[in-house]
């Protein structure tokens, strides 16, 4: 069944390893929705989160292929609904006098926060699922959105799982 799935990869934090992993996604023609990469608590190891729209077999094959990349320490996949996925967005909105209050109402409604309040424009920070972030950005589009920076989603599977501890599955 085609659903949104998270593929999480622990890999050496070198550009060459990252390039190899991402290059593989391109070469195998995977339906990538977003990519996010950042450090982990283990020095020298990064975590790459890839959100894809695919069936289970495609996601599992991606995992097996990623596991073959030298520098990749572990990889796992799970349907997004079996985990928590969050994305962060920064949205720069033009703040004009008469609609400023209305803008703050929207920010409050989405439990977002204003992280910069410059004279001409404010920056709104919001965090949530991809759908939540999209809905909030849409609401902010009632004002003049100048720039949007989205992080791409990061995700963790519910319960007692640990991508780093997973061993490659053998049929």
């Amino acid at each position, binding site marked *: 069944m085609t659903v949104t799935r998270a593929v999480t990869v622990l890999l050496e934090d070198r550009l060459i390893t990252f*390039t190899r992993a991402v290059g593989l996604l391109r070469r195998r023609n995977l339906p990538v929705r977003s990519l996010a990469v950042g450090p982990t608590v283990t020095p020298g190891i990064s975590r790459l989160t890839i959100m894809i729209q695919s069936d289970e077999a495609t996601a599992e094959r991606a995992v097996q292929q990623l*596991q*073959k990349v030298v520098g990749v320490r572990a990889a796992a996949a799970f349907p997004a609904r079996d985990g928590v996925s969050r994305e962060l967005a920064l949205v720069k909105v033009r703040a004009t006098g008469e609609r400023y209050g209305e803008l703050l109402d929207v920010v409050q409604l989405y439990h977002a926060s204003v992280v910069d309040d410059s004279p001409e424009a404010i920056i709104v920070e919001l965090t949530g699922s991809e759908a939540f972030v999209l809905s909030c950005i849409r609401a902010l589009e009632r004002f003049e959105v100048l720039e949007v920076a989205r992080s791409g989603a990061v995700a963790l599977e519910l319960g007692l799982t640990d991508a780093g501890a997973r061993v490659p599955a053998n*049929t």
Partner: protein
Amino acid sequence: MREQLTGSQILCRALLEEGVDVLFGYPGGAIMPFYHALPEYPELRHVLVRHEQAAAHAADGYARASGRPGVCVATSGPGATNLVTGIATAHMDNTPLVAITGQVPRAMIGRDAFQETDIIGITQPITKHNRLVEDVEELAEAVHEVFTVAREGRPGPVLLDVPKDVQNQKLEYAGGANGSARGATGRREGLIGRPTPTALVEAARLIARAERPLIMAGHGVILSDAYDELRTLAEHTGVPVITTLLGISAFPESHPLHLGMPGMHGEVHVNRAIQQADLIIGIGLRFDDRVTGNLAAFARGAKVIHIELDASEVGKNVPVAVGLVGDARAILRELLEALEPRHCDAWRAEIATFVRPRFESFKGELSAEGILGAVEDASHGRCTVVSDVGQHQMWVAKLFRYQRPNTHITSGGLGTMGFAVPAAMGVVMARPGEPVWAISGDGGFQMNMQEIATMVQERIPVKMAIFNNGYLGMVRQWQQFFHGRRYSSTPIWSPDYVRLAEAYGIPGWRVERGDQVEAALRGALDHDGPALIEFLIEQEANVFPMIPPGASLSEPIESEAVTA
């Protein structure tokens, strides 16, 4: 005090520690320090090719014939990019190839220096692993890492890019101890899985109950040296054996259980057996599109047991009932223990009724079958055949009767024209004293015929056979069948090959009639050194049967009769 060695000397030592005895290469600016050190290590024989592509193919041929990594060396920039086709060839066919390239000095990397190219970026999708050496401290370890990766598990090509100044850096060298491969190896060993007992039991149950089972043996049987196990399994169960293009010579062709090659140019009875089968035991193959034809119509009545080293291959192209992930040899042994002897006589008798008389496309007396039969006879079956790509490749695959393991070498996955002549040089180096035939068409031969000079200079006795039909034959055949006989850019002129041979100082023969074949073969084999025979074959002979691209295995074109 330990010795101070240069990076180049360390590279040579590390290669020796890896058991390397021959390198195929070509010097140039960024690899000169390495070539400066090379004469200090006479155990490393260097074969100077005439084009870096040939170095990669020769190293590939060496690896395929010996089972050990083959090594090629080139300079930065054009030297490195010339290796690319050879590396991609090895990647598609899972050959342990180690490419070593010079790189511009570290301080110049990224500045578009003279002969700088991002060979790491270029070869990333066609290598199993590649690595830029950033300091002499990591050089020996990097060499051992890339060799380990090339060899282990499902083999494949690797590339090591060594900046010129790293080759000149000095270090106190402690020997092999420096070179425990970094992290990667231990973890990756875990990837060579073992099938679960349940999966083995299920596979054995399917084999015991099948009425129309088939074994499809691929390159993995050769790579894992599982010839005896394959043969024992077949004989124990009576299951007929199909060998894919790269699986040819994994099973003796004189064996009553041997069926032939499947797929686009497979025999009609083989493809029909696949379509009628209720069980396919695939061993070390990837169910390539040239084997399956239209996937949706492939073996619809068959369950598939897939024995495969690489878990990501299982279920990639065909749905699998049982996947047995691991080394083919070990799995076949375990499977045998779980299987009672049985036979498949009724099924084999049924397959025998599928056999169709072979349509002979050659009208004259000089046919592919006649030539290849004579090659076999003249070599007393004790030779290795390296083919190029095209019509002759299919004839060589189908008409030669392979008896001994791993005696058929060809570029299967990438289908690289120009492969045979340089690859055969590597095969000769791996199997000295055994006749090695490089069989090419007139197109493929002209892609790398410059290597005759290498054979002469390095005394590499490749026996070259050219099937000259004046066309790029396979493309012409497709034009005949699918493009209304518009022979666009397929007629190809050839030089006088006998005089070409003469120019290189080697014997050459032109064979135009059947009665000239034997003398030419005898002459070439008796000559102590490289030799060349040109066979002037019929211009528009075709390879039959043929499954049109995109069609199912049930829709073969069997003869000229259907030509539009």
